[in-house]
């Protein structure tokens, strides 16, 4: 399973629309979750609706939170999206077997069985989460909380039974007009990582869309994601109600 988690506090302002980029991700089998970090209760009307739409286009969830809730939100969203991804796959399977895709419509004992499978797959299948961090100037005071949330997410993922990895990116790049820079390649632990964002020069523009495209490319290069997806599908088709 592949996820992108975007943490931002406002509106994109250069390059490809982030909504288009998120739709691209979704068609590649990557769910896009978005967390909007509030200062004192405002990201602006525009920011809020963009955040919601990115998630909708990306087949993921969106949430507006203040910094104190960041860790718990990131953790919950990731977990929820895992279940949702599997649920969608299971529903497709159910449709073939029953001609009806809804888990809610199943009688209680069948539903119990299906949910047991969802829970089991949710715990054991491979998971990759690429975090994309908005590092525009206004985010600067929030980066400590973001880093904490990333460490906290790693801790939760390490408790899963399936292989779980994260990678971290920020945008915009500090020089040469880079859209997006990788801070951390795929890893399943943060031991020894002193600071995820060492000496960031906070840029002024917010190229959210191009950054998402950059990470989709990064996913394409990896083989691991593809393999784990096939595994999940294989397990799914072996399941009969």
């Amino acid at each position, binding site marked *: 399973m592949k996820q992108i988690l975007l943490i931002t506090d406002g509106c994109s302002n250069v390059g490809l629309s982030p909504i288009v980029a998120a739709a691209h991700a979704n068609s590649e089998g990557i769910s896009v979750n978005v967390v909007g970090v509030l200062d004192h209760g405002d990201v602006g009307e525009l920011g809020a609706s963009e955040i919601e739409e990115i998630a909708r286009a990306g087949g993921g*969830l969106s*949430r507006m939170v203040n910094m104190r809730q960041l*860790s*718990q939100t990131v953790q*919950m*969203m990731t977990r*929820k999206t895992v*279940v949702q991804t599997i*649920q969608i796959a299971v529903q497709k399977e159910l449709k073939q077997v029953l001609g009806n895709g809804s*888990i*809610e419509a199943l*009688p*209680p004992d069948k*539903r*119990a069985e299906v*949910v*047991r499978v*969802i*829970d089991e797959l949710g*715990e054991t299948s491979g998971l990759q989460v690429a975090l994309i961090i908005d590092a525009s100037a206004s985010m600067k005071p929030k980066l400590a909380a973001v880093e*904490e949330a990333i*460490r*906290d997410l790693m*801790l*939760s993922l*390490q*408790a*899963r*039974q399936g292989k779980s990895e994260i990678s971290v990116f920020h945008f915009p790049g500090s020089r040469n007009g880079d859209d997006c820079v990788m801070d951390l390649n795929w890893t399943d632990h943060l031991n020894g990582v002193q600071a995820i964002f060492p000496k960031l020069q906070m840029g002024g523009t917010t190229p959210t869309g191009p950054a998402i495209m950059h990470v989709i490319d990064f996913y394409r290069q990896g083989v691991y994601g593809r393999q784990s997806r096939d595994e999940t599908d294989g397990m799914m088709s072996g399941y009969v109600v």
Partner: protein
Amino acid sequence: MATSFKIDLRRGMVVTGKWKQGRYRIEKLLGEGANGKVYLVQRDRNWFALKVGSDAVDLQSEINVLQSIAKQKKQGQETFLFDVDDLYGPDGKEYPFYIMRYVLGTTLADYLKQQGAEWFPLVGLNLLGKLAKLHHAGWVFGDLKVENVLVADYGHVELVDYGGVTAVGKGIRQFTEIYDRGYWNGGSRSADAKYDLFSFGVLCIQLHEPKRLHGLTTELLPQNRSVEELMQVAESSQGLRPIAGWLRKAFGGEFHDAGDASAAWRLLMHRSDTHRTSGIPGWLKGLVAVSAVLLGTSVYWLVRNML
């Protein structure tokens, strides 16, 4: 994410299960949380608690846990889960629900406020006993916190909200930050008996020093949260000092499971200083001394008069 959960069942309404046609009369709302609402209901003159959920998959996975636990129950133990079905809400939509035993009781914090802190050692022991049973069957409670512990008369304890219950070895399904071992840099989020004992330790601090515990969560940088900080609060608290050694073991994962931990707790209870905080007030001790003297003199006079 369960964002808005609108179902609202009113007193006097009768809901009928879609699959098994069980009929339940709504009496009142008992509580609500992230995953649903809990109502007091009546069926054939018996009281039950009905939990209705917003997300069929979430609620079902909680029900699955309850059903597995029910299967492991030994004979003679009280039933907890009675019925599982779907209902039609006032909005015409279907909602999943389950029926459980109605637990008559108050939340832990309220109980101690009303009945007095001297009940704490016994309630703690009973709670450890509940956890021990769960651990023995291969489960970890997960989301242990004051709100999820109901206490009935004479310190009888019942756990509610099985949404966090996790099979040993898996990732904890649901937790609350301040009770979480990972939050305090005290270990992983994998389900093991020691995870619950860690939360139990935080719960003890929450009961005695809620303000100072909350203070730690706002003052400390994430990397500085530690068992040591928790222990400093415990050691400088009058109510917690007697159990500080026990707490250190719980935080350090030194108890094998809740059975082990409750044996150690029991030993503490029979030491006099555990009870001292709520013990005999000074003036009462004075009274006892006075009456002893009085008794002594009256015995003296009695004996003298007999002679």
